[in-house]
């Protein structure tokens, strides 16, 4: 048992899961931290990205690594559409923050149901997958397929690029300003509307890419999204609101917990582990996920 746990194989699996969770959670974190919108449909964007990659392969023969940029763009456009069409008016109008949070949650939930069932209607509920980069590579005692390695590397590169953008670019700085203090950011001349639009674009785009990368190694199905939403919530809670670095660390913690937990028990406990973590972190942080406010009681 200890031998299995110490194997490089398992470590790689934990890293791969962590990287995909980090990419999924990043978008959720950005949209929530800047606008206080809890996007329960986030996982469904992952699902759509997976289907987009699948259809590119099976209809046009475009390999996933080539279609990635296009999928990111479509995801970003979807995000901008959702912001412009549904949430901008609500954000501008709502004075009561609590009401806004609840209403936006119901909106996202409705959207999630629409997207899931539209996908089931259009693509049927049958899981779909394709073969890509299936040759086995050996590194010491670790054997892995090319698709797993490629998905991990692309996810890691993208994460690094987004972190650099948020840390270094003026626009990334504006996003972080909005996270830290909305009103103050507006006062010093940040164009709040444009930054919010960009957060939606970046959030949805990165989720779509995460889905496309996932489809390289796993099958996609219409109702696969929600567990990713839950995983992303866990990651964001573990890492802290708006903390991009914390979120990435949290993703690798969850990836390791899940991989090693499943290795110690059985694959049928994966869901229990994930939802158990979710309930646990929420119950232990009852006053807002990110505990900046002091406890009232």
């Amino acid at each position, binding site marked *: 048992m200890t031998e299995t746990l110490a194997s490089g194989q398992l470590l790689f699996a934990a890293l791969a899961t962590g990287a995909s969770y980090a990419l999924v959670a990043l978008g959720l974190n950005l949209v929530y931290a800047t606008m206080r919108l809890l996007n329960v449909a986030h996982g469904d964007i992952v699902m759509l990205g997976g289907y987009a990659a699948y259809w590119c392969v099976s209809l046009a023969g475009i390999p996933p690594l080539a279609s990635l940029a296009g999928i990111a763009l479509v995801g970003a456009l979807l995000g901008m559409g959702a912001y412009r069409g549904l949430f901008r008016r609500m954000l501008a109008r709502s004075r009561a923050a609590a009401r806004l949070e*609840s209403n936006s949650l119901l909106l996202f939930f*409705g959207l999630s*149901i629409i997207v899931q069932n539209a996908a089931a209607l259009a693509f049927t509920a049958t899981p779909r997958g394709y073969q890509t980069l299936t040759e086995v590579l050996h590194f010491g005692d670790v054997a892995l397929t090319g698709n797993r390695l490629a998905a991990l590397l692309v996810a890691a590169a993208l994460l690094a690029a987004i972190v650099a953008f948020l840390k270094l670019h003026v626009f990334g700085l504006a996003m972080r300003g909005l996270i830290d203090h909305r009103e103050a950011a507006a006062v010093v001349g940040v164009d709040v509307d444009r930054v919010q639009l960009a957060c939606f674009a970046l959030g949805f785009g990165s989720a779509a890419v995460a889905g496309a990368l996932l489809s390289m190694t796993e099958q996609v199905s219409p109702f696969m999204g929600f567990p990713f939403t839950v995983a992303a919530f866990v990651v964001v809670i573990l890492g802290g609101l708006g903390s991009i670095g914390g979120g990435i660390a949290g993703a690798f913690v969850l990836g390791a917990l899940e991989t090693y937990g499943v290795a110690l028990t059985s694959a049928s406990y994966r869901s229990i582990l994930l*939802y158990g973590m979710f309930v646990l972190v929420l119950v232990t942080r009852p006053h807002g996920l990110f505990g900046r406010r002091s406890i009232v009681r």
Partner: protein
Amino acid sequence: MRSHRDLCVLLAVMALAALLPAAAGEYWVGIGISLAMWIALTQSWSVLSALSGYVSLGHVVFYGLGAYVVVASWNALPLAAALPLAALAAAAFAFLAGWPVLRVRGPYFVILSLGVAELVKFVVIAVEAGQGNASRLILDTPDLNTIYYLMLGLAALATLIAWGARITRLGHGLRAIREDEEAAETLGVPVARYKLTAFVVSAAVPGAVGGVMALRATYFEPLQVFDPMVSFSMIAMSIIGGSDDLRGPVVGAAALTLLSELLWANAPELYMMVLGVLLVAFVLFVPEGICGRLLAARPATR
């Protein structure tokens, strides 16, 4: 008072509905069962979620636990004991889970309730798989008319409870919590006790409803009885009907049960999509629901 008249009208309609099996065939009795089920579930949901603003996305957990209790105790207990036990089990679970879960506020409570329901679903699946059951069958269930009367009784009971919760101190306290929980607490509303009471009360009838539906289905499959779409339907019906009004859940349940009869058999995905679109549209444009809109329109036309 308005709500007294509403209650009398609703109960009179339900009493009339008891004549349905004598007047119509099995097909209509089947629709009657669905309608009564949704009224019972949505009324119960509204006790906690509409009044206190703690929107539960996980109410299916009580329905599923009730079904589980009835199926697991089949042949061991008479139905007259199993159904109350189902309600009791759901209420007990709400009581135990409520302590930690209800401390979580606003949108976090919403997603947490969904997470708890999913967690229970996967635990039940694991337990059943551990015993070698993928699904269970129950035999010698009561006939359709008996199931209909049971469900109609639960719908009336849930309506009565929802009315009671609205006119008592509990209801006023819950509404105060919805508007501003901290202010309510400062004014002496026993916030934690009221929330827990509402949670337990809103869990009991759904437990019994789940038990009755297990009799109807004659089999038990965790993925089906813990389907999050059941919770989603309760919310959609309540918001579309008008969640702050005693008639709202009935109006919403009637509208959507009708829609589901038209669509569900042939295109279940389409039905869910329409439900999603309706929910989004009502949240955006008619947040007070059909009943709220009609009530608001009345003084203007007078």
